[in-house]
């Protein structure tokens, strides 16, 4: 009896002691989609179970925008920031330049870097050092409405991925057959509008084989031949569709953000592809889920982005795990980062959600991907990432502005792209050695 009580007391003390010695870490994410959050929580639970001396707490901190990290910035400035943060990988260089992130360089050996997709790894570097670890990624492709194409009776075999990358002429031919107008000359249906959905300058710039940044010269290159050609192509499309008519048509759908609309932030009724008013559109891999939810009866297909080069091209975004400055225990925080971006963590995420991992070996595991997802995975081989620059956000904004000016015929493509350089290059120069 006496011994039992002592044993219990000791056991109790041990448990309390262990619990007291347990270190807690906070992990912030701005994701809100329940399936994604559930997957993250699963990975966190796996880690906590395997590491009893640590307890990671997943906290959702919805920001108003993917780019808006005001909550993170104030928290870190005030010394109350999280230990691990899930950051838009595209902004890692930008935030690293601002001093918001901890250099992880020493902890990641060079061999480990090779396990990731090259473009994803390059995105987490700033001045040669790694300030984050890639987590997941996405990819862009061309979606087409089979019902609409069949109804128009046009031959769409060029859009079958088995026939490789569609040519620009193919897309044009098919689109023209889908255009419909009413008696007043307003569009009621359009075949293809290059610049909506995910048709940003990066998309077509990469599809045309262009490069947006010359690392050796530390110079932005949106005025390179291929990218100018891609913008001129968009310009031609606007002219072909009739600028006023097409801008009017888009305004009928969009949330008012000019002639370009984002698909995630406008209600489905305002997405022309979902409502069956647009035949083909460049969109991301997540769009499959949107279509299944809001247009369950639509027969749609997915193929490679059209390109004049005939090669598979796309670009990818995604997330990275970073350690904001001011983390108390960097070793502990890194252990979690290692786990979640490791094979097991990324596998869990890829299996539970529709996102793609950034570890090459997982991309080769056929079992994880089915149907359309398997096809989209193949596009990753030809995908690029946006250049990891401390001026990334501004570059993005200016490129979109250039596209707008071109579509509205206020500036010639080359002129608009040169303006991008004149506005953004000076800020980049401050980081060039």
């Amino acid at each position: 009896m006496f011994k039992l009580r002592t044993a219990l007391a000791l056991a109790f003390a041990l448990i309390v002691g262990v619990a007291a010695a347990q270190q807690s870490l906070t992990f912030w994410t701005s994701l809100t989609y329940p399936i994604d959050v559930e997957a993250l929580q699963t990975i966190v639970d796996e880690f906590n179970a395997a590491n009893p001396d640590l307890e990671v707490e997943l906290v959702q901190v919805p920001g108003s925008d993917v780019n808006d990290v005001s909550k993170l910035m104030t928290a870190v400035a005030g010394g109350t920031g999280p230990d691990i943060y899930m950051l838009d990988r595209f902004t890692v260089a930008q935030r690293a330049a601002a001093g918001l992130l901890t250099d992880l360089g020493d902890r990641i050996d060079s061999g480990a870097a090779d396990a990731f997709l090259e473009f994803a790894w390059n995105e987490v570097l700033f001045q040669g050092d790694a300030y984050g670890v890639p987590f997941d990624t996405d990819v862009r492709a061309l979606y087409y409405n089979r019902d609409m194409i069949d109804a128009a009776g046009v031959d769409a075999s060029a859009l079958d991925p088995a026939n490789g990358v569609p040519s620009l002429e193919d897309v044009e031919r098919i689109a023209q057959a889908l255009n419909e107008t009413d008696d007043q000359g307003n569009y009621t249906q359009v075949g293809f509008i290059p610049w909506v959905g995910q048709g940003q300058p990066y998309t077509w710039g990469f599809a045309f084989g262009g490069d947006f940044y010359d690392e050796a010269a530390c110079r932005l290159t949106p005025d390179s031949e291929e990218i100018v050609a891609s913008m001129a192509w968009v310009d031609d499309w606007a002219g072909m569709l009739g600028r006023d008519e097409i801008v009017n048509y888009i305004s009928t759908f969009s949330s008012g953000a000019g002639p370009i609309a984002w698909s995630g932030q406008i209600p489905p009724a305002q997405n022309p592809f979902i409502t069956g008013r647009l035949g083909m559109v460049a969109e991301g891999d997540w769009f499959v889920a949107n279509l299944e939810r809001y247009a369950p009866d639509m027969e749609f297909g997915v193929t490679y982005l059209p390109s004049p080069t005939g090669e598979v091209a796309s670009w990818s975004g995604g997330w990275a795990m970073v350690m904001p400055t001011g983390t108390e225990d960097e070793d502990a925080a890194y252990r979690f980062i290692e786990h979640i971006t490791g094979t097991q963590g990324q596998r869990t995420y890829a299996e539970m959600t529709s996102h793609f991992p950034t570890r090459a070996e997982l991309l080769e595991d056929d079992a994880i991907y089915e149907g359309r997802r398997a096809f989209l995975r193949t596009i990753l081989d030809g995908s690029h990432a946006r250049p990891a620059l401390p001026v990334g956000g501004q570059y993005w904004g200016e490129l979109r502005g250039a596209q707008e000016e071109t579509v509205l015929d206020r500036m010639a493509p080359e002129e608009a792209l040169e303006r991008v350089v004149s506005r953004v290059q000076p800020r980049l120069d401050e980081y060039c050695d």
Partner: protein
Amino acid sequence: MKRPGSPPPLDRSSRRARRRPVTRAGLLRALKEKVGTRALLLVMAAFFLMPLYWMTITALKSPAELSQFPPTLWPRDPQWRNFVDAVTFIPFGRYFLNTVVIAVLGTIGTTLSSFLVAYGFSRLRWPGRDIVFVTVLASIFIFVRFPVNPITMVPLFVLFAKMGWVNTFLPLIVPTFFGNPFYIFLLRQFLLQIPREISDAARIDGANEFQIMRRIVLPLTKPALAVVAIFAAFMLWNDFLGPLIYLQDQDRYTLSVGLSFYQGTHDTEWHLLMAASTLVVLPQLAIFFFFQRYFLEGITLGSVK
């Protein structure tokens, strides 16, 4: 004999008599008189109610119907369960309580402090008063989006972090006790309209300033205070950035932060978002509807003389 310093009793009997004529002919005549006005008001009301109408029909639609273009003007099959889903998607009750606490305490702080300060700027004459009042005007710039316009955001956050107030409601409530220039200015405008003679008379009688403020001026200011209280309450209720940056534990979030949970990077739960937003706005509407008489009694000063 009317007592100086108190508002005359509202002449309710005559108002009621005017509103409800006894004869049927009188009733018809009254309705006809106001038909034109009523028609205009109804048209205006319809216009201003459009956002609520749109929110409600969106809240009642199913995801499939949400993708109808052009959008349907009435839900085909009203999904009342969306409201249930909306309050289970996030810890709605918890966030509601948090919001109430912040709104109530902050409203008390704002109204109290703004009144006291406005009193000092209007009911008393002291050298340099109007020059110091310029600081209030100048501060309007900061308080348009206080405390989180990009310029004040970081230094203030660092200050509060050093005091250990992050992840509490304190940074959202305590600053309200120091006056808000918008309401100081507003109350000053109203207080300046109360004749000085009223206060002077009491001063001659030997009352100190606190007594004058409490017993004479405060009752006259009730309508304006009601306006300030309601405005302050609604502003706190709907404040997003403040709670977003200062609250770190998920169970401390407020409703406005909770609303952002329905919005995702690639998809938004529009029907749930609209349902939740409707629920968030209903308490405010109810309060406005039931308490409007408090700020509409007016300061009928004309009868004081």
